């Protein structure tokens, strides 16, 4: 059993607080992805769990055992780094075996395990090469093999794929998903790539300025973001935000009026509409938001139309079929009304009823 528990974990570098009183529980066998803007403390948090960084305050538990004061090697974690961090002077075999060698594991056991894992990761015929003789993708697979071979309780990944090109990234992502399905080891994964996060995660943790914004399965975070930050952070193109005033279940702005499904809420708010929930008003439907088309981006499978709404806000929506509006023309838009997001003045989601 290897659940990970963080209790009030805090980290300061000198006077700047990077992580502030963070609580989080990760279940055994779960794959949790940390996302957040650059510099929000993802790597720091990961390194604290690994023990590479001291905690200023708070406690860390792995498998029910308090490890806050323990040496990194004794926590039963292993880490895959963005830069691979392979030992340049050792061949692949020795790279993978190094940890076991240090632990004085029997030679036959080492050999058996190294070869089994090399087969698992399809690097069996690279064992006799130096890291400099490998491609980026191969190096990363060696790094993963090195992490796996010690059979850790927890895997930590710090942006493992961000040095790879797009195609390789997609492929390696699938491999990691497969590995996780097979090994069922608790994993924490840091990434900048939303597709990676959405596809791999059992649960996602959105961090912002050293604090947890929201935790939950990817779908829940995407469809029911609890804060304005999460809503804006996930999804590409970004969620559209309109400054509105809510009264009597109608959100009004200079761009138009949108009926919202809240009974009790009144006052200033932000209305969030995902680009896929915004459409051209067609035929008889009367538009709820008006604006002027400014730019059309053709991505092949879809087009993204940018519109300047009547109140000056920039909006974007997907347009899949038919002729897109020409830039400069006035457009009327409608929304999928059961998929709206409303946030109060503090940026918190207004509970829909």
């Amino acid at each position, binding site marked *: 059993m290897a659940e990970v528990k963080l209790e009030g974990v805090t980290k300061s570098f000198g006077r700047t607080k990077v992580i502030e009183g963070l609580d989080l529980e990760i279940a055994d066998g779960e794959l949790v992805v940390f996302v957040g803007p650059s510099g929000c403390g993802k790597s720091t948090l990961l390194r604290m769990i690994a023990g590479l960084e*001291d905690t200023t305050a708070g406690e860390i538990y792995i498998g029910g055992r308090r490890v806050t004061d323990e040496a990194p090697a004794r926590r039963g974690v292993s880490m895959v780094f963005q830069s691979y961090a392979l030992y340049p002077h050792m061949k692949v075999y020795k790279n993978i075996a190094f940890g076991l060698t240090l632990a004085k594991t029997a030679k036959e056991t080492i050999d058996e395990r190294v070869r089994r894992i090399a087969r698992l990761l399809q690097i069996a015929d690279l064992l006799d090469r130096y890291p400099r003789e490998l491609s980026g993708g191969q190096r990363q697979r060696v790094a993963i093999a090195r992490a796996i071979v010690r059979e850790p309780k927890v895997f930590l990944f710090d942006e493992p794929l961000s040095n790879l090109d797009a195609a390789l990234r997609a492929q390696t992502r699938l491999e990691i998903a497969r590995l996780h399905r097979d090994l069922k080891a608790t994993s924490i994964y840091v990434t900048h790539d939303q597709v990676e996060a959405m596809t791999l995660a059992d649960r996602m943790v959105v961090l912002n300025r050293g604090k947890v914004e929201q935790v939950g399965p990817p779908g829940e975070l995407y469809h029911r973001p609890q804060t304005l930050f999460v809503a804006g952070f996930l999804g590409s193109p970004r969620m559209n935000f309109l400054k509105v005033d809510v009264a009597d279940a109608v959100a009004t702005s200079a761009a138009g009026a949108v009926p919202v499904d809240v009974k009790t809420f009144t006052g200033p708010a932000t209305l969030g509409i995902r680009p896929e929930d915004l459409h051209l008003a067609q035929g008889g439907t009367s538009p709820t938001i008006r604006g002027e088309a400014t730019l059309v981006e053709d991505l092949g499978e879809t087009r993204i139309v940018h519109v300047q709404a009547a109140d000056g806000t920039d909006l974007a929506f997907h347009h899949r079929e038919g002729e897109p509006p020409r830039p400069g023309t006035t457009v009327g838009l409608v929304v999928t009304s059961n998929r709206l997001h409303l946030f109060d003045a503090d940026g918190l989601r207004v509970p829909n009823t």
Partner: protein
Amino acid sequence: MVSPARHNEGQRQRVRAAWLFLAPMLIVLALVALWPLLRTFYFSFTNASLVDLHGREGIGLGNYLAPVDGVWTGLFADPQWWRALWNTLVFALASVFLETVLGVLFALVLNVTFRGRSLMRAALLVPWAIPTVVSAKMWSWMLNDQFGIVNDGLMRLRMISEPVAWLADPTLSLWAIILVDVWKTTPFVALLVLAALQMLPKDCYDAAKVDGIPAWKVFFHVTLPLIRPALAVAVIFRFLDAMRMFDLAYVMTGSSDATMTVSVFARRQLVDFQDVGYGSAASTLLFLVIGLLTLLYLRAMRPDLSGARR
């Protein structure tokens, strides 16, 4: 509230190991540097002699300045000491100045791409690699008053009409030694400056070229300020080294008053005259003089000793 530094076991082990790793080096340095230095300070207040270090008595400031039978004695009253200090300062200032100017010249030349540059760069390492004693001997031979090639060359060029006694003439010998030191250590300065030159951004030079600014102006207004940190480091290293110069003077001119540096003076007292007390006092004073000048220099220049070239 931030609790006091919490280190996990791994970090604690690292810090412990760090001290353990430092210990052998610190012990050796204490044995060969710190302790001997303290002993030298201590000896300077005694009348210890080399043959019998133990049979010493404290004599207070007797080695520095004290009245004996109504006459002031000690280093401060010793004209030879003052002469040695003067020689050392003249030597250090002149040689460091010349080395810096020549070193920059060498570096500028080596920074130009031309055929034979790598040969030139290799040649630069020749004087640097040659042992000081060997340089001293080579130059003594070249500067020999009767058979020296320098006199021969100068006479052929009609720059002198009769041989010059470079090393025996008290007005010339210190300058002969400065010449050899400049020859030997210019490469060091040149290499440091060259490393700095090669890190300079190319675009400001292109900009200057486009603006048609004359080369000498570019040098004084762009290059020199940019290599100043590297130069400051080179100068302090060279100066500290020049202030302790021993080999050249000892090998080329023995213990002639005209070239005697403080190091030569101190060793002569210590070893030749067996007067450990007096010699230690001279050493101590040299140490203090160098320390003082270094502090003044660091104050004035603030060179980045830790990594000017990174």
